[in-house]
């Protein structure tokens, strides 16, 4: 009567500390340039090496420019952080996918895409969106830099075991409704702290029907519900996606791996600490109006009136709307849009570009809109070209940039100016997230495309 979470977690326990955390063995550690330098520095000051260097993979993604990656990085502070990662990877003997390497991209796009993230693994990275890798059936979660140092030093981490939650989405998703909308809907229902203290297993027919890309998007947003991570039991969709990838097992090892992976499911009588069920048919395309991802509504809906907000949340609600310069009761459709961002570890995969192109085909980018289309990896760029999506998008007036985290957190030049509105496929609409004073509306690639071609918030179903 074990949950899949119990099975994977418990099989990785090295020791239990009396009255404290468990020592968990980690199969993969990913490092990017922002949250790793102080961990490497910590190893140096302790005079130790990485314990299992072959289990650690490094790649720059947060600071990288999305144009002219073959030229020196202009911002000297970013350049130093990028150089530091490369130097550290070399010094500690770690695999490094540099900015111009064909394997480079956002870690959470590259890990599954290279077959580095596999079912049954424990995976960590100094990045909250590490939850993404849960889509392959792994226990993946974000950690702080001190914890990155722990894993480098011992391939282990000390953690209290989270509680277990299952979120089932049953039924069929409607036209124009994607995994992103499902996640925004769940967050609206349970809030951004609704899953704090839990690890979430997503299940139900709507989740089973999702492609691997959709599952990666859903698991990516687990952290925005407050969950430590989220995952989906591996199935034929997972195996088909992973087969033949660079680091996936092959030949006889593949067959043995699949045999093992097929055992990775929650028992029928497994007991979860909490279980929630949603009806897929009730979910419509979603968009956020506030400054946390739980402040969402249907694209064709409106912002709540003050009376509809619980009394204890009214101050935060008013503060959010004041930052966004929106008013209670406002309809979302028709709101002016200045910027559109397609990309990030949430929605920077090939399926997201296909969706965006499906709306853009035969239409043109609105004059008033600045659009940043940023693939999640060099592999996604290759696929975009192979499928001819680049031609469709360029004819519609869009430019495809080079991969990186880009305007999701605006550590590079891709910043939304103060006061401007950006419909973004990323994961956070916090104050200043996309640049000081920037106003973010989170939505799916379809809704982002609809905004890009009309210059205003538009229900994508009206363009399909």
């Amino acid at each position, binding site marked *: 009567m074990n949950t899949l979470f119990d099975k994977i977690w418990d*099989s990785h326990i*090295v*020791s239990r*500390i*009396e*009255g*404290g*955390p468990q*020592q968990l*063995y980690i199969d993969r550690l990913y490092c990017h340039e*922002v949250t790793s*330098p*102080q961990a490497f*520095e*910590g190893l140096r000051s302790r005079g130790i090496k990485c*314990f299992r260097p072959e289990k650690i993979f490094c790649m720059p993604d*947060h*600071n990288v420019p999305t144009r002219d990656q073959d030229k020196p990085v202009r911002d000297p*502070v970013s350049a130093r*952080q990028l150089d530091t990662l490369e130097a550290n990877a070399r010094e500690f003997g770690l695999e490094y996918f540099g900015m111009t390497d064909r394997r480079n991209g956002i870690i959470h796009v590259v890990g599954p895409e290279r077959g580095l993230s596999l079912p*049954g693994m424990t995976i960590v990275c*100094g*990045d*909250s969106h*590490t939850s993404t890798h849960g889509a392959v059936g792994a226990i993946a979660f*974000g*950690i*702080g*830099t*001190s*914890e990155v140092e*722990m894993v480098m*030093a*011992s*391939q282990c*981490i*000390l*953690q*209290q075991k*989270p509680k277990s939650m299952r979120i089932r989405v049953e039924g069929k998703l409607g036209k124009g409704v994607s995994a992103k909308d499902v996640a925004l809907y769940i967050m609206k229902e349970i809030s951004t*702290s609704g899953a*704090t*203290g839990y690890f979430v297993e997503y299940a139900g027919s709507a989740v089973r029907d999702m492609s691997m890309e959709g599952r990666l998007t859903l698991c990516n947003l687990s952290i*925005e519900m*407050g969950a430590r991570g989220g995952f989906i039991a591996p199935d034929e969709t997972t195996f088909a996606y992973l087969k033949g990838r660079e680091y996936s*097992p092959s030949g006889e*090892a593949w067959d043995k*791996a699949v045999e*093992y992976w097929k055992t990775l499911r929650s028992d029928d009588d497994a007991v979860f600490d909490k279980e929630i069920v949603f009806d897929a048919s009730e979910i419509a395309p979603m968009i956020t109006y506030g400054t*946390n991802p739980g402040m969402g509504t249907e694209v064709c809906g409106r912002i709540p009136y003050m009376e509809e907000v619980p009394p204890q949340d009214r*101050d*935060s609600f008013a503060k959010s709307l004041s930052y966004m310069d929106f008013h209670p009761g406002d309809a979302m459709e028709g709101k002016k849009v200045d910027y559109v961002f397609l990309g990030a570890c949430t929605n920077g995969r090939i399926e997201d570009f296909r969706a965006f192109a499906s709306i853009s085909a035969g239409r043109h980018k609105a004059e008033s809109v600045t659009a940043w289309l940023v693939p999640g990896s060099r592999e996604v760029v290759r696929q975009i070209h192979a499928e001819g999506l680049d031609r469709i998008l360029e004819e519609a007036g869009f430019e495809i940039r080079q991969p990186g985290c880009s305007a999701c*957190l*605006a*550590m590079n030049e891709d910043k939304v100016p103060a006061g401007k509105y950006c419909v973004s496929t990323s994961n*956070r609409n*916090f*104050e*200043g997230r996309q640049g000081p*004073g920037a106003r973010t509306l989170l939505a799916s690639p379809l809704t982002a495309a609809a905004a890009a071609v009309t210059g205003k918030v538009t229900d994508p179903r009206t363009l399909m």
Partner: protein
Amino acid sequence: MKQRFNIIESTCVPLPMENVDTDQIIPARFLKATTRDERYFGENLFRDWRFSPEGTPRDNFVFNRPEFSVEPSEGIHQILVAGKNFGSGSSREHAAWALAGYGFKVVISSSFADIHKNNELNNFVLPVAVPEDFLQELFDSIAADSGTRVRVDVPAQTVTNLATGSKVCFELSAYKKYCFVNALDDIDYLLENKDRIQEYESRTKKILKI
């Protein structure tokens, strides 16, 4: 910074806002540092709430009000009191470094985001989760008297609002309490049990095949 905790008694800085995310605690543009300079991060704590883009202090933000603007020192403003779901969002440990760098030793809230809570614990900033009504009463006490003192007794795992005498227990695992009282961190522990890790590795290779 590793330090021993026993009993902390101090005035507080109130931040009666919910869902304070780590992007607000330390905005992304300050994450480009490659060293762990807590002073630098502390100077930029709540940067965009504390200062205008031109760098002038925003008078309406609580840290800039005369009664709370004095930087923390022994017994003064060492405790931050914040609304529920404190530290949500990004895993950036820089947020914990900023809180420590500013001089906070304790953060009191009714709930903490999981990753940030661990980051505080790993940096010897103590997250103290209290019931909603205790938190509200504490905000009320501080609103009535900005000099309200709070006593956090780590060995006893209790927190007391000295203005009202209200006292509650808070959770802290026996292991973490031992770390806080003795100034030890997790890496010290892990480095001492390499044998068990190797034993685990040889045991599991046979099952996983990957």
